[in-house]
């Protein structure tokens, strides 16, 4: 379980798939979700398997989420702001059927 050992910023609230998450100013979306114990951010576009944060530094693109309606944002690079709407990205199941 993730634990915040120090509070330095202001509390900031945003939603992830409709659930309210309280973060701190200065957090990235990925850090805030990790701190809130949320490890699954999306499902793989190939197999649909759940995926979460991997590198936290913008390299792996595992943390792609939809932020305020814009898909494919790197949660580890986007700072949290009050009222942000973040949604998990669910693979592309219809697409898989079509190509099978």
């Amino acid at each position, binding site marked *: *379980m*993730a*634990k*915040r*050992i*120090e*509070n*330095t910023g202001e509390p900031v609230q945003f939603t992830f798939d409709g659930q309210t998450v309280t973060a*701190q100013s*200065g*957090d*990235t979306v990925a*850090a*805030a979700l*990790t*701190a809130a114990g949320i*490890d*699954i*951010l999306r499902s*793989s*576009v*190939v*197999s649909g*398997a*759940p*995926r*979460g*944060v*991997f*590198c*936290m*530094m*913008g*390299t*792996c*693109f*595992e943390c*792609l989420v939809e932020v305020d309606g*814009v898909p*494919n944002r*790197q949660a*580890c*690079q986007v*700072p949290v702001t009050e009222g942000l709407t973040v949604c998990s990205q669910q693979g592309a199941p219809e697409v898989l059927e079509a190509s099978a």
Partner: protein
Amino acid sequence: MTQHSPMEPTKVDVAVIGAGPAGMAAAVTASKAGLSVALLDEGQSLGGQIYRNIENGTPFRDGILGRDYVAGRTLAQSLRASDVTYLPRTTVWNISTDNMLDLSRDGSSSQLIADKIIVATGAVERPSPMPGWTLAGVTTVGALQILLKASGVVQEDAVLVGSGPLMWLVAAQMISAGTPPKAIVETTPKGRMAQAMPHILQALKGHRYLTKGLSMIRQVRGAGIPIYNAATNVRINGGEVAESVTFISKGKEHTIHSNHIALHQGVVPNQQVTRLLRCDHKWDASQHCFRPVLDGQGKTSVPDVYVAGDGAGIGGAKSAALMGRLVALAIAQEKGKALPERVDRLEAALASDGAVRPFLEAMYAPAPQFVKPAKETIVCRCEEVTAGAIQEAVDLGAPGPNQVKSFLRSGMGPCQGRVCGLVVASIIAERRKASMDETGYYRIRPPLKPIPLSELANFQPLEVAQK
């Protein structure tokens, strides 16, 4: 220093990409020499990886992160005091051969033209492909450290799996934070010390690093954390999320339960920008990675493009800053400016700082499991391509990473091969019995980072005549 100025520059003498130690030092020195400088970084704050969030440190966090971290503050301050234009949250997503940089900032794209470009984009963690490494809850060790530095968040009861100095450092930092790892699964193969010993005399010249390293390892052992040595056959188990890690150590199979497993196999140069620019690269057998080919002054094979810091080859923060200054001086000299400091002193300091490297490189070279993963292991995480599929593509005639990519889409996902590139190349080289230089690497194409189609439609290019 100028920041958020309404008139951002459209033309500069020097564009520095990356605001870690190399980039900050290069920018400050170039600016002191009288050159106009823009420092661009996609991150929110100065510091790069090692000095991440350096300007917002608290005494509590400084205490956990240690002296080497705090040392970065001076560099950040000198940058703030300089005339450098620092542009945070700015992603360089393309550079064309006429030195035009395509940038994305706060959701809109524009251009900047630079006489000289210093690539200071640092390192990325070497991939540790193993069964189960795509499960949610599995991160890199670096990711845990970033959480701590940037947000003061620590993962409790995490298991660290891998090898190398950074893993020990992060373990020590987690202990200081009061949330020690549950266990450390060390993958450094047996017999490495013997291979490293020939370099020990030279390494002693850099004894500060050796002492620090030993004291870190002692701190971790002293904290009573279980440490498993020379682990092999490592795999992660779980359904939706990681649940445990299984491995063999000292002839016995072990399973440790945790939902948070962190992997590390050292760091390697981030090649994206230098590959995009088609700089020549060569395989470094000691560091087990590709490095851009540079002259003594950080100059690549491509005119006007320089590299400083870990992107040039792994040397650590101190070397990165020294090299940043040297590269800036080389450019200043070429531009006929008076040099603000002496080159020979910097060169001597750089040589002495690097003395410990060959020892560390021999000691912590990646274990075979991660260089030649088993057939069923996923290598390309984005497109879920296994090691076995890559071998089959080679057998069908694919001679290198780009043809494998055309066959299998490995390296075609959003990470563009940042994670799988080195492993894909080594699987191909192994299969074809070819060298890494013959095998080569992915061609890197823009955009370096994804950009919305709508942002491209609203792109604001510079209205200058294209050469």
